[in-house]
């Protein structure tokens, strides 16, 4: 073996991304099929209870209204779950060291985890969409808007998951993050209703919920109707993504909780 055969400089990014994709794909029954099933159960139950009784947007039946919200909720929750669970598992089992020892840059590290989260989010979202189409077919007025929010929203939640994974020291911390932040924020974001149906105070509070903008913007892609302008939502979601990404790359650079 020749000494110092390491002059060829390649990047570890591709492999880290591949490993992150393989990680959830190898257990896709848990990571893709299960969340699709959950979303379909929501659709069945809520549309059974509310179909014909509620009309959120004129001319759009409640089941059709529900579909984009459920798709986006699945996208966001699974993007979060992917990066957070991958990182905390590696931390707890100690095999994160395999990623910390190689010359992978902070941005590459960030990118690989977040892109894998986006792919998982979109895979689950697409699964939910395909299955719900069996029940009703919603219109798709502005698909590019929908795609933009799906990608940006899952990127944002992948970044939030990455932050949670960096910060957490045990699985309980991730569960707490999920139960006390992600779950309430998604449920109160307008997945199941339009915020215009809420009392004024709650309407105001909802506007501080980033999930609201992600769901509302995504829904605009289907119906061309939304509670706030899609440009506003795009600015909020995009701005949050950029700000959080910069903060996380800085944390990675400082070795916060990963390199003690």
């Amino acid at each position, binding site marked *: 073996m020749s000494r110092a055969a*390491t002059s060829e*400089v*390649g990047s570890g990014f591709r492999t880290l991304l591949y490993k992150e994709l393989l990680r959830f794909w190898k257990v896709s029954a848990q990571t893709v099929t299960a969340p699709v099933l959950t979303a379909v159960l929501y659709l069945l139950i809520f549309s059974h209870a509310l179909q014909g009784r509620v009309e959120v947007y004129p001319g759009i039946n409640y089941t059709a209204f529900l579909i984009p919200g459920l798709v986006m909720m699945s996208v966001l929750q699974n993007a979060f779950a992917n990066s957070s669970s991958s990182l905390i598992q590696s931390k707890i089992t100690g095999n994160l060291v395999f990623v910390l020892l190689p*010359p992978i840059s902070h941005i590459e590290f960030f990118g690989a985890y977040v892109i894998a989260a986006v792919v998982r989010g979109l895979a689950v979202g697409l699964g939910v969409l395909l299955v719900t189409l069996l029940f009703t077919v919603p219109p798709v007025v502005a698909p590019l808007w929908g795609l933009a929010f799906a990608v940006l929203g899952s990127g944002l939640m992948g970044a939030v998951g990455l932050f949670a994974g960096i910060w957490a020291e045990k699985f309980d911390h991730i569960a707490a993050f999920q139960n006390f932040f992600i779950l309430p924020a998604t449920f109160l974001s307008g997945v199941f209703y339009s915020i215009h149906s809420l009392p004024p105070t709650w309407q105001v509070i909802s506007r501080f919920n980033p999930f609201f903008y992600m769901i509302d913007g995504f829904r605009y892609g289907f119906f061309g109707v939304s509670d706030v302008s899609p440009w506003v939502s795009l600015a909020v979601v995009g701005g949050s993504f950029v700000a959080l990404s910069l903060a996380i790359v800085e944390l990675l650079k400082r*070795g916060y909780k990963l390199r003690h």
Partner: protein
Amino acid sequence: MKYAIEATAVQKRFGSLQALGGVDLAVEEGEFFGLLGPNGAGKTTLISIIAGLTRADAGRVKVMGYDVVGDYRLARRNLGVVPQELVFDPFFTVRETLRIQSGYFGLRDNGAWIDEVMESLGLADKADVNTRALSGGMKRRVLVAQALVHKPPVIVLDEPTAGVDVELRQTLWQFIARLNRDGHTIVLTTHYLEEAESLCNRIAMLKGGKVVALDKTANLLKRHAGAFLHLKVKGELPAALAQGAPREAGGGYRFQLASYDDVESVLAPVRAAGLHIEELQVLTPDLEDVFVQVMSGAPAQERT
């Protein structure tokens, strides 16, 4: 001169614990270097700082001339670390693990070298077994293989033989010695001092986060004050002589000698008492004796 590893005034504190209190250390290229010390001496902390897994509070560390913080990509490219903890990724087989590890270093087409490493470490027949299903010893081999995928010029092994059977130890040391002959610098921590004595050309001893001894192995062995005399006689030793010499399990006594001249001061009273000597042996100190002496804080002095 470019060192394989150069640590300058490295300090690290964890809360109230001073893990490293200003460590200076330079390992030359091609050395087989031992880092010894009791548990909690700071060996793993120092290795973690070299590997970039931990940040020093003060001081700096370079690997092959590259700063481990400022030039971390080049420093890490030149370094292979076998961590002490037996960690593995349960999602992958041995070959997948090694391919992925190669990829992390930007090496895509590394199959031939992966095969060679697996062969040398006795992993070839486990190549397609999931790492989760391997025994502890086999997992240890995978960790060693992972540290070597990118052919690092500097290889650090943190207690690679802890809880490992004789066969793996021999396989491992043969392979590591070969890498050292090929020019790789090896840094080793171990609690098996006979391993360090036979393998390492130079040794640093850490205690309480400080380097308390640093020298060529041969010099360290010479530095130990004196030797030992094992003596067993028929009947009882004169009380004055037996005093201060620990009694051994077999009924003999162990005398510490400041120098070989002291042999006479033990034998003269024995002769005077007319005792018959059953066993007599002069023992030169091994690394363990040196270690105990250094750790107990006794001044190290040249043996006369």
